[in-house]
């Protein structure tokens, strides 16, 4: 494997992604965690870009780094929340945790190692968006529509939740 700009970029992005993930777990302040998460999202988007999945990359940034994070920040900043009062875990618990993580790592490693996706030549570089569109509206129409129903349910659910809170507020 020769050293190319792509490789350097990949390692850079991967490093940021992992670092973001690690920071997400280790940081104590919730807002800091969200910012770490943003970096993970962004570098994942960068990796998509390297894979010529322009559209997915952009949507990743638009939806995850943009909208979702901001909604998370919004929620965190406006609501009351208790910081860092997790009880310390016992030694046994920690041991099992490590064991589980190791097991998971082995399983994933084996899974990926043995994975054999039949490679088919695609023209991903050209008109990436158009291809996604065609796939979506020919092969995957039903899942696509079902997904929209799901989102609608979520939307209605959110309204119901917010409304309920309002009424409670009135009573109290």
């Amino acid at each position, binding site marked *: 494997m020769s050293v190319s*700009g792509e490789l350097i970029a990949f390692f850079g992005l991967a490093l940021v992604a992992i670092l973001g993930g690690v920071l997400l777990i280790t940081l104590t302040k919730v807002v*800091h965690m969200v910012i770490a998460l943003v970096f993970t999202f962004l570098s994942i988007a960068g990796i998509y870009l390297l894979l010529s999945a322009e*559209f997915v990359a952009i*949507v990743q*940034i*638009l939806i995850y780094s943009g909208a979702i994070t901001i909604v998370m920040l919004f929620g965190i900043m406006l609501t009351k929340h208790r910081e860092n009062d997790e009880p310390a875990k016992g030694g046994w618990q920690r041991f099992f945790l490590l064991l589980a993580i190791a097991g998971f790592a082995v399983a994933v490693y084996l899974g990926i190692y043995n994975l054999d996706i039949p490679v088919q030549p695609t023209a991903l570089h050209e008109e990436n*968006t158009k291809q996604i569109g065609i796939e979506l509206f020919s092969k995957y129409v039903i899942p696509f529509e079902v997904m929209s129903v799901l989102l609608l349910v979520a939307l209605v659910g959110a309204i119901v939740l917010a409304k309920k809170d309002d009424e409670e507020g009135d009573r109290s």
Partner: protein
Amino acid sequence: MIKDLLHSAPSLLNFGIYFGLAVLLLFVVLGFVTYGILSERKIMGFMQLRIGPNQIGGKWGLLQTVADVLKLLIKEDTIPKKADRPLYILAPVIAFAPAFMVLATLPFTDAFQFADIGVGLLYYVAISGISTIGIVTAGWASNNKYSLIGGMRAAAQMISYEIPLVMSLVGIVLLTGSLNLNDIVAAQEKVWFIFLQPIAFIIFMIASVAELNRVPFDLPEAESELVAGYHVEYSGFRWAFFMLSEYVYMFAMATLTTVLFLGGWNSIPFLDFIPQAIWFGLKFSAVFYILVWIRVTFPRLRADQLMEFGWKVLLPVALANIFLTAIIKEIVNLF
């Protein structure tokens, strides 16, 4: 040229060329910001019966902004004691970096463009969203109630207005069949989209002013309510970063408007002996002038009215525009 560079093996030379080009763009943009601010102040002065800057750099005040920037750089950098220090430092960077990133895909002429990616249009919207995270972070990290409210407003506003902004452009995408900015410009060789998509243009102008956080949508930094909003606590070069990113976005948004609706570098028929760059500059200046004009004329909206306007007026109209465009396109296709 740039495309070839991208696919070649990395070498010091390539890196040097890249770096050189980036620096060149940086200076172009900084030059714009310097004189963009000056011209904004001059136009505002003209409209408000004032003279505007006229002391430093001759009677046109040509060095005023340079002096301002120098002053900002040597000003004391204050960090409030109770601020969230790492985020306070990081926030201007998060707000500022995307402002330059969006410039990468914008085509200024058919030769002067850095990256010609397929989803250029979405790229702009997506990347500019990251700046909002910077603004929200700044508002939170300052540990000041005014800046927190400013940050909140910025977030709410950005989410609400990004949607009509993108929706207004779907009409153009339908007509062009591409999200690529070069293709969009090419499609306007005969008729500019401002004539084919007038409704979309109006929605886009309104939503873009809102995305730029300028009057009448400058709620995140409404000085009469929130003193200065999210950057109350910032000073010196950190504050300059926010200001700079604001003007770089203005530069980018004026460019985008030109590219999307005014035919980019395309000339008016029979006048194509004038270089493309000049055509682009003229259209760009017109958009910039309108942005300043809006700022001078209008009072500010209220936060809830802003939200209502975005969701209840702009979004439905934008959706109707998409519908209308699709129908017309199909009818035209029939014949």
